[in-house]
């Protein structure tokens, strides 16, 4: 649906080769494409306008006009300015001075992910050695308290709540948590629309009574143009110190991040990256800028790989690759580690330009069939594929529910891969082994 900004620029500047000079109007065309990209990414149109006005002068500078690759230059300028904008306010999350406990309070619209984020933050900081407690003051949504209690049970973190007025419940909950020795109290509040005066007054009352260390505005990455209105209203009426940007594990470009930071002037501190309780990460302005411009997330991919791949084993593989001893057993283990990074499609989606290639779908079932075939081999066969003769092939085919042709194809692909590795390893490989896949 969205094409890469770099690809679009190519079109604009390609026609210029042979024509000599880049003119101001070429640059204007390029900036129009930037506008398109930003709007498609859901950056608010007013924010887009002021942002482009700001970068215009720089884009028309000598550096671009005289450059060999003006498209790249402009992209770099835009990218850098976006990073500045998103990261300009950056700071670490704040804690209160002991002995008073740190209090973090969540506010936001319905369905932005406040309750889940409470659980994630509590889990993350419990692991970091703090003693978090959670307070459930969302008495509006049915079973919201129960949801937080369930998360608390899963994380083994105490949850305080009560009945009656949410303001009193919040105050009493925070007091109870403090009494119980919490050094970090995470306060969940009900989702509310910024146009609902009564509920906005209520959350403001909670804030002034509880006096949180940080008040986080929890916002959904899929939000469109309206992000500016709701964020500005929460910032103005309630007062917010930071933003938590949720659901960025989807494919939304997340332009709302730019809008929110721009209108509120507060930093994004964390991003929510999945439904599981460990799905929370610090915010990286550079990655978000690349994402908004549709440039892929190479850094994220490398980090994911580092988390999933056992480094010792990777070193072993590299040794084996060098000596061309890489066999089915190693291949199978590598496949398992790759799977830990998530569905292959989403992993590939993080590569620039890959996400939108039509027809690039990984057939997970084909991958499973391949695994079944490898698992139907004896250890001896996995180590020495050359042993696999006709009758062994038949056995493997039967054992894995495939045809002999499938087994033949796998063996052929694997042989081809080994050959490729041989060539590559002659060129010298550093760091992580490449992850060769026979499809």
């Amino acid at each position, binding site marked *: 649906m969205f094409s890469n900004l770099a690809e679009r620029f190519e079109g604009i500047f390609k026609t210029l080769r042979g024509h000599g000079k880049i003119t101001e109007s070429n640059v204007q065309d390029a900036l129009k494409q930037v506008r398109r990209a930003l*709007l498609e990414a859901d950056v*608010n149109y007013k924010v887009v306008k002021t942002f482009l006005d700001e970068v215009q002068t720089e884009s028309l500078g000598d550096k671009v006009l005289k450059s060999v690759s003006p498209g790249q230059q402009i992209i770099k300028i835009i990218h850098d300015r976006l990073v500045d904008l998103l990261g300009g306010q950056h700071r670490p999350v704040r804690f209160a001075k002991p002995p008073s406990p740190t209090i973090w309070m969540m506010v936001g619209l319905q369905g932005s992910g406040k309750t889940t984020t409470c659980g994630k933050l509590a889990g993350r900081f419990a692991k970091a050695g703090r003693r978090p407690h959670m307070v459930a003051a969302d008495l509006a*949504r049915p079973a919201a308290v*129960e949801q937080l209690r369930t998360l608390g049970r899963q994380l083994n973190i105490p949850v305080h709540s009560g009945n009656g007025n949410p303001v009193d419940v919040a105050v009493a909950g925070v007091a109870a948590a403090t009494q119980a020795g919490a050094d970090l109290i995470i306060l969940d509040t009900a989702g509310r629309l910024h146009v609902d005066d009564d509920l906005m007054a209520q959350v403001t009352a909670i804030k002034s009574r509880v006096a949180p260390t940080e008040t986080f505005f929890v916002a959904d990455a899929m939000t*469109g*143009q*309206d992000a500016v209105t709701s964020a500005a209203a929460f910032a103005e009426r309630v007062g917010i110190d930071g933003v938590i940007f949720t659901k960025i594990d*989807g494919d939304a470009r997340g332009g*709302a991040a730019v809008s929110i930071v721009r209108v509120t002037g507060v930093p994004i501190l964390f991003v929510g990256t999945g439904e599981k309780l460990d799905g929370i990460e610090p915010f990286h302005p550079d990655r978000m800028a690349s994402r908004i411009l549709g440039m892929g997330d190479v850094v994220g991919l490398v980090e994911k790989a580092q988390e999933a791949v056992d480094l010792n084993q990777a070193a072993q593989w590299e040794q084996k690759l060098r000596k061309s001893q890489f066999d089915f057993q190693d291949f199978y283990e590598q496949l398992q580690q790759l799977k830990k990074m998530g569905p292959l499609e989403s992993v590939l989606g993080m590569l620039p330009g890959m996400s939108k290639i039509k027809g690039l779908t990984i057939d997970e079932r084909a991958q499973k069939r391949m695994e079944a075939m490898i698992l139907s081999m004896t250890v001896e066969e996995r180590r020495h594929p050359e042993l696999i003769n006709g009758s062994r092939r038949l056995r493997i085919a039967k054992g894995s529910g495939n045809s002999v042709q499938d087994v033949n194809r796998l063996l052929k692909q694997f042989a081809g891969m080994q050959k490729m590795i041989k060539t590559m390893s002659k060129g010298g490989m550093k760091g992580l082994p490449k992850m060769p896949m026979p499809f």
Partner: protein
Amino acid sequence: MRSFFNRLKEGLTKTQKALAGQIKEVLGLAPAIDDALFEQIETALIGADCGLSVAEELIERLKKRCAKEKTAESSAVLGFIKDEMKTILTEGRGAETSAAPATPMVMIFVGVNGVGKTTSIGKIGCHYTQAGQRVIFAAADTFRAAAGEQLEIWAERANAQLVGSTAGGDPAAVAFDAVQAAKSRGIPHVLIDTAGRLHSKSNLMAELAKIRRTVDKALGPAGGTVEVLLVMDATTGQNGLAQAAEFTKVAGVNGIVLTKLDGTAKGGIVLAIAHQLKIPVRWVGIGEGIDDLETFDPDEFVQALFD
């Protein structure tokens, strides 16, 4: 009871002020029909989350119409926009049958996380029970903490029967049980709650496809109607299109429930979806109360937007 029109109008007050006000202001300030006027209208449409391509298409249509009808009055342009928006929304209605759908009517509610699936089920269920029809809710969101409890509370409020589940259970099995129960008890409406899932997660989408297949199977040769409703938050931006496309691919979406339209969000993505995917909006959520959800009427929607 207030009429739908009034309620929608109330719910859309902010929307009106924002979008219609903006367009009206544009038209009021700019007496001549020129490019600057069209550009301002385009900006207003983009600001309403209609998306660039729909905004551009609308402007194209407007320009043609202005040229054809030789309009010199900018005030007439407002009428044209309304017409064109209605056309897009009605194009997306699809073929509607006048015959009553076969029962049981199974509605599967799908969507990304936090859009209001469970709440919509509560409200739509209430709509049927208030009309004297019996309803079963199926708690097939076995993933999110306390989702089952949330639906249980809604079942009590709406006076609906409930097929519950255990956390971490098989959602397709819950859906199957609910359809079986409806068949044996002769209940005409089954509303299935599913876990929120991002459309980009293939494993979760496969799970949804299984729920759909299971429902088809459970209905069996005796038949019934299956309606897959995509619940979407009015604040959703351009990602809404990708959501609609993916959920349609996996589960065959028949209609959209547009929620949280009582804020300042304009829900313009509905136009883009109707335009590109021809999926109609069926229901709109315009408030927090149990009866603040109504069937969608494109005429009234556009009317309420501009009046």
